[in-house]
């Protein structure tokens, strides 16, 4: 595990006793854990364990039948996704959810929509305050473009980009909102080793430089062991373990339920 500058603080978000089911399918049963300020938390588990559902609950996309989410000290039962965005939660999706008809630049600019204030009359004139506002946001989006090293695809419609770059643009859109809590659903899925390394670097840099709290879902154990401060393990909708990567790796239940099936991967992690 790498040593990082940020001091991990108290719980930024607390999940307590969450139950979520779809008809007969129980996606989450009595799940509780916390995400602490400035940390990188990995959520792992076999396919269908309920990881994506958990993120969907956190950002108001799914509404759990039972349980509460406490975020920044406020407990909420039901929340709309756009309201979650307003409180500083941004995310990316497992199956990329970009605006395909728009360029990279415009996609990332949408990440700043919440920060833009001018009404449509100003915008129609594109003059004075509206123009200045646009320029200021353009400047910060350009910083993100530089950070993610995607200058050359600025004007390309994202539908034409290869998969790895689309994931990067989606991260850019989430970063543009300057979130306090960033949820990443399998940000490295389907990438080659080099792309994965880049993505790991971006995630670590975001966490280091801006202190952004990050919860990410990842299947690649070596990545998880490398970059996360803590790990939550889900299996069949239940939380079966929660702790530092070393603790989780040594956990009998986890080995049986999850690591056991992919033993070779955990060995590579040990060697790394």
């Amino acid at each position, binding site marked *: 595990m790498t040593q990082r500058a940020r001091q991990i603080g108290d719980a930024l978000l607390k999940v307590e006793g969450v139950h979520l089911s779809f008809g007969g399918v129980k996606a989450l049963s009595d799940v509780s854990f916390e995400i602490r300020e400035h940390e990188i938390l990995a959520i792992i588990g076999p396919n269908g364990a309920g990881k994506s559902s958990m993120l969907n609950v956190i950002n108001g996309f799914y509404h759990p039948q039972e349980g509460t989410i406490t975020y920044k000290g406020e407990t909420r039962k039901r929340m709309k996704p756009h309201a979650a965005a307003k409180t500083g939660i941004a995310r990316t999706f497992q199956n990329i959810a970009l605006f395909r008809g728009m360029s990279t630049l*415009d996609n990332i600019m*949408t990440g700043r*929509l919440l920060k833009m204030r001018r009404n*449509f009359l100003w915008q129609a004139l594109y003059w004075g305050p509206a123009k200045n506002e646009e320029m200021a946001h353009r*400047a910060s989006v350009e910083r993100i473009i530089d950070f993610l090293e995607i200058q050359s695809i600025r004007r390309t419609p994202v539908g034409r980009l290869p998969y790895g770059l689309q994931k990067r643009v989606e991260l850019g859109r989430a970063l543009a909102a300057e979130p306090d809590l960033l949820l990443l659903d399998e940000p490295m899925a389907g990438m080659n080793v080099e792309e994965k390394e880049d993505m790991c670097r971006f995630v670590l840099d975001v966490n280091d430089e801006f202190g952004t709290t990050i919860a990410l879902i990842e299947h690649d154990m070596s990545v998880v062991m490398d970059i996360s401060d803590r790990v939550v393990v889900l299996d069949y909708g239940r939380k079966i373990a929660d702790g530092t990567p070393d603790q989780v790796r040594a956990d009998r239940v986890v080995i049986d339920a999850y690591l056991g099936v992919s033993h070779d991967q955990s060995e590579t992690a040990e060697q790394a």
Partner: protein
Amino acid sequence: MIYREAGQFKTSYATDQMMFPILQDRIFMILVIAVAYLIPLIANEYWLQAVLIPFLILSLAAIGLNLLTGYAGQLSLGTGGFMAVGGYMTYKITTAFPDLNVLIAVLLAGLLAALVGLVFGIPSLRIKGFYLAVATLAAQFFILWLFNKVGWFVNYSPSGTITAPPRTLLGIMVTGPEATAPVRYLVVLTFLAFFALAAKNLVRGRIGRSWMAIRDMDIAAEIIGIRPFQTKLLAFAISSFYCGVAGGLYVFFYLGSAETEAFDIALSFSVLFMIIIGGLGSILGSILGAAFITMVPIFLTNAPPLIGLSMPIDLQKHIEVMLFGSLIVFFLIVEPRGLARLWQIAKEKFRLWPFPH
């Protein structure tokens, strides 16, 4: 080699974000506008009245529909209805307040049309695509039915016709039977120039991006903080405002007098065809599409006699329908971004000329 951006370095985001970042494009746009204003000097009454005035007004309506359908992704078949609101409300306002400037009456009527559009946009919260189109179709029929049924809208005229009363602007007759075609053309052109520019500004800023976000993926739009309902309603309102203003101009600066038939479903479809052929999600495309749909019938009337052919009028109508039909199928399947995209491709080719790559 003449048309290119070489040597034009963008030194700030402001220049990069400009509507026409390439100098030649800017010069071209200014030329087009200048020529448009000088046209009354050379065009005859027939061209102004039968071709150019309806073209400009329908361009405005097409921009309105394109904001809603091309940018925000909400299919509407109620364009004729929203234009009718503009037409009838301009009539009501200007007859109730004869001293009010008629252009202000048109704008106020546009605002009322925006309100009506807002109401008929409410179903978009729950329904999408085809079903929403059916709901807007209901708007189309309901509005026309109302204007036919309730005498108040036509000031109880027994014929059910609304007629543009004579009004002046800066001492010049702009509406009514004595208003000349060149004057009406210039008023309509000014409206289009102003509102096309405003639309272009809207779509390249925050609002345009939130519309396109809703269009491309409403779920993702919501998680970045866009409120889908408000965003769609704003699209309905602004779109209907454009259609309403176009409807007011249609009655007062083109037809002179009208009944509800002028705004029937055929008009809604015709404006929809304009944006499909011109290009969904393009302001320029809206204007190109309007030009195409208004010019083709004129071409079919005038071209055959020039080469010594005579074409019966019904055959001409049939050719027109077939041509539009096949073009719409072509554009929907092959190039959904329409004539505007073809224009863009041509420009890119020209930029590289004389080198093929």
